[in-house]
């Protein structure tokens, strides 16, 4: 099995993408709601990623 070394950002984006897909699939009742929820969840992950990234940046001074 090949070895993979991803950066923090790449790893977090991949995790967000895969998790959002499953959350979208299992959470809502219609396809339209599922797509919307999946995109929304992915958006929240990305916002949290950048938000926490900047927070840590400023936290370290």
């Amino acid at each position: 099995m090949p070895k993979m070394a991803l950066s923090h950002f790449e790893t977090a984006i991949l995790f967000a993408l895969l998790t959002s897909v499953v959350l979208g699939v299992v959470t809502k009742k219609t396809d339209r709601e599922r797509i919307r929820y999946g995109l929304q969840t992915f958006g929240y992950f990305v916002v949290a990623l950048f938000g926490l990234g900047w927070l840590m940046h400023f936290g370290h001074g």
Partner: protein
Amino acid sequence: MAESSKTGPSGIAAVALGFLIPGGGHFLLKKNIRGVLVLVSVIVMFLIGIMMRGAFFQPQGGDLLNIIIYCGGFLAHVCSGAVYFITVALGYNQPDVAGHVHDYGSKFLVGAGLLNILAMVDAWEIATGQKD
């Protein structure tokens, strides 16, 4: 409250198949697109975890936090289904070493199992008529 209209073997079969093969419950219930999405997401997450050389958790004693982390992690791995058992059978035995790549790998391996649990619950709800 939505009442189950057809609880029975099909619900248990969907959960059992979903446990073995991620998305299998959805395939059994003819929800093929959702099944493919779950299958691809869980397998890709698991494989990325393996390629990042994440460590598998083994149940351990000790303080409460240790028990929760290690036993919970192990249960999540088991819930990844057949891919976990195949990986262990093939001899994958990555020691828990320091480094962010290994650490993320472990989280991906746990995450794959947790996503499969969500998929199994969804398959149960579909099979019992609580959801379409």
